[in-house]
Structures are given as C-alpha cells and as structure tokens.
C-alpha cells in the first residue's frame, strides 16, 4: 500500500498519523528523542541542526500546549519559527487553506506544523506542497495526533522499558479522541499485547474492536492488572449533549480516583495528554500523586518533537 507519509526510499517524508507506520520508524523517533532529552537538560538547550530552516506553525484550531512545545522544539533546533493563528487571520477574510499554504511556501517554508478541526487537513496539505517541504500533523479533527502518541510511547518506554509485556488501558471519550486513535495504532505496532479501552457506550466508536483493542464499560474491571493508564480529556463542549447525563455522574463511573487506581498494578503509571479537567476525568489526588507522570510527558514532548523534526528534515 502506498503510504503518503513515506518517500520513495521508505523514509519518513511527513508525519500525519501513527497508523501504518512501521515499528522501526517509530522506534527510531523514540531512540533519537532519547538523545534530545540530554540536550534539553543542558544550560544551553540548543543544537545547530535546523539552522536557517523556516518552520511555520499553522494552527487553524486553538491550542496552547501543543503549539508552544512545537515552537520550543523548533527553536532548540535553531530553526526560525513563525506562529500563525489562522482562525484570527486570512481565513476569516475568506482565503482558502491551500492558498494560505501556497503563500507561505512562496516565503520559502521548509516545514509546516498543522492543527485543524477537520480530519484530513494535514494530509491534504502534504499532498499539495512541493516535495522538499515536510508536514507534521499536530492534530486533525477526530483522526490523528501522532506526536502526542509518540511522546506517550516515549514516556511508557522510559518507565516500563519494554512494550512486549504490558497491559495498557485508555480511559474516557474514545469517540471524539484523535489522541486515542493514534495511541492505539502506536501501541499495537510496538507490540503491546493487551490494549484496553474503557468508556461509556455513548463515547465509543462502533466496531472499535477492529483496531485490536479489548472494550470495557466497567472501569473497575478494565483497570485490573494494568501497567499503564492513559486518561483522555473529557471535552467539556460534549458534556451538554445527550451522550452524558452530567459531569458528576461521569466522574463517579469513569473518573480516575485513588481507589480505582489501586486495582491496577501497584507500579502502574498514570498519563494524561492535557489539559486536565480535575474532578471530571481525574481526581487531583491522582493527578498530583506519585504514580502520575503527566508533567514528565510534557518535558518528553519537546524531545520527541525535536526528534520528529530532525528526522523529517534529514530525509
């Protein structure tokens, strides 16, 4: 199958999704990120790899954390970064997305980092740009958020060392979550033998089992014996619909508390892509507890994004 993310030599040209990416490519990103962790711990947190390169953060949808970590990552690689908050600029004047991209390409862009509320937006841009330009998907609709999944894989490997003997549970709103989809593809490709999804029926895509996951509607059952708990953000904007009765009830059944976490392995780690809704999907005692690795995730996110940008720019 022709994978639009790979060039004719089978190397990574764009990063659009973790789906269909071979394990060696995922592992190379994780291995390279290990070296960047060291760089980010020095006094001078900068290497000259992307000196003179222009990277455009194209955010058609608001985001603080992802945009900031991409910006920091690019700056630590010595690239020049331009942040475009498109929602507030040309598109509101009627310019199409591809015209925006054409204009920025004419300014000699080397890389686009794209966040868009429509699934497939980054894919469309990747097919449209000149072959020397690289595109990174920073989240498209419900489809994919590959760098988030990769930083999650990096964090899991840091704490658990090996993917091949793990039970991993993804908890929350799977239906609307591009993070969950990217996590599932990455986890299965990297050889995690048991991936569980824990979610109310109304927040689960139909036929999700086809992705190779085990479905649980009872959180107590689903957390039993797991090594890693991946929490998802309950998107507040979905709370008012018919899918959920109330935030309080959601917390009662699917909020991660110390009592529920005690059912997982005693050394299980808890992760969350942020921003967290304390008291809705996660209790503060867990979020700030000793099993939480939520802040290390943010730190590793910069190293992982540096690795992705470097590998793309070098291919």
């Amino acid at each position, binding site marked *: 199958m022709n994978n639009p993310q790979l060039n004719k030599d089978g190397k990574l040209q764009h990063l659009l999704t973790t789906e269909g990416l071979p394990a060696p490519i995922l592992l190379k990103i994780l*291995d*390279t990120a290990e*070296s960047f962790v*060291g*760089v980010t711990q020095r*006094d*001078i947190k900068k*290497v000259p790899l992307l000196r003179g390169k222009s990277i455009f953060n194209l955010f058609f949808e608001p985001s603080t954390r992802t945009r900031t970590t991409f910006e920091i990552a690019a700056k630590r690689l010595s690239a020049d970064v331009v942040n475009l908050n498109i929602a507030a600029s040309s598109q509101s004047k009627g310019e199409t997305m591809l015209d925006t991209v054409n204009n920025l390409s004419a300014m000699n862009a080397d890389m686009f980092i794209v966040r868009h509320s429509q699934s497939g937006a980054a894919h469309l841009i990747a097919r449209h740009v000149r072959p020397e330009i690289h595109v990174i998907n920073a989240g498209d609709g419900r489809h994919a958020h590959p760098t988030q999944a990769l930083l999650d894989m990096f964090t899991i490997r840091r704490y658990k060392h090996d993917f091949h003997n793990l039970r991993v549970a993804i908890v929350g709103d799977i239906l609307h979550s591009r993070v969950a989809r990217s996590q599932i593809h990455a986890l299965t490709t990297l050889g995690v033998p048991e991936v569980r999804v824990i979610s109310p029926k109304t927040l689960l895509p139909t036929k999700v089992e086809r992705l190779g996951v085990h479905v649980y509607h009872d959180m107590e059952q689903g957390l039993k014996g797991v090594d890693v708990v991946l929490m998802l953000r309950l998107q507040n904007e979905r709370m008012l619909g018919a899918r959920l009765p109330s935030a309080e009830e959601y917390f009662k059944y699917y909020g991660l508390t110390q009592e529920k976490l005690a059912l997982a392995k005693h050394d299980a780690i808890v992760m969350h892509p942020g921003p967290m809704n304390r008291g809705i999907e996660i209790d503060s005692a867990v979020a700030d507890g000793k099993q939480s690795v939520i802040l290390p995730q943010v730190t590793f996110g910069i190293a992982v994004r540096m690795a992705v940008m470097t590998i793309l*720019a070098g*291919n």
Partner: protein
Amino acid sequence: MNLPDAEQLLAELTDKIRSDVTKDTVLVGIYTGGVWLAERLHKDLECTPPLGTLDVSFYRDDFHEIGLHPQVKPSNIPFEVEGRHIILIDDVLYTGRTIRAAINELFDYGRPASIRLAALVDRGAREMPIAANYVGADMVLPEDKMLALEQKDNGKLSLNLYDKISPE
C-alpha cells in the same frame, strides 16, 4: 595491507598521555570507537572524575547532505565543563570534521580551560586546522579506504580496513 595491533597502539597512547593527567583531568570519548578507548584509558590512567561521552550527530556539518546518523546515542557529560582540562578521545583522526563538531558540542556545556586531543591513528588528509596532542600511530591510507576500530566480545580492540561505501 598490514595494520598495526590496536591493543599495542592503545598501550603506547596510554603511556604518552599518562604524564599529563592530573586529578582534575577529564576524559571524553567520541562514539563509537573513541568511547571504547576512553573507557580503557579511564581505567588504566585511574582517572577520578567520571567519563564523558559524546555523540556528535547533532553537530555534524553534513546533516543537510546525508540527514541524521542512523544510530544516535545520547551524549553524557556527567561533570561541569566550565574551567576543566579535557582530553578528547577518538579512534581515527582524518578530516578533522568530527573533532570540530565535538569541540562545538563541548562548548554548549560550558567553557573548558583547555581541550587536548588523543587519537589512536592519525591518517592525515585534514580538511580543518586540527592537530592531535597524542597519537598512537600515523598512517597513510588510500582515499577509498575506511579505517575502523572494532571491539570483540572479550573487549579486545582491533583495526580493520574497509572499502568506503560511496555516497548515494
């Protein structure tokens, strides 16, 4: 072509460095061969400060031509570089470009008091104004050959000559 015995060269190199090593001297090996040598020197010279290792992949000048090296290892400098006397160790000194990259990387950790260079083999053909302070052997080799240090399972080092793979 007869290549010198790497173990014997290392013994000679160790003797050349020995008189210059003080209790403050730190050793930094460059991956991969330079790290093997640095580990042996660190032990034989009874250095007190921990050993540093550098992977210069992020500082190479050919990144835009050939991309990232396939296997990047984390650099590890477990001491303050500021004000230190550093001996940088590599297996084969050739164009000097690796050493240029290594010096640049070290300066991103701090300003050392001095950097000296030790190489097991100096094969000449420099492209940068760089010279080693300590050398095991000088060799003149054909341009199309690559000289590589290898480590066997028992830790013994050997030199081997290969045909250079022409760039794609």
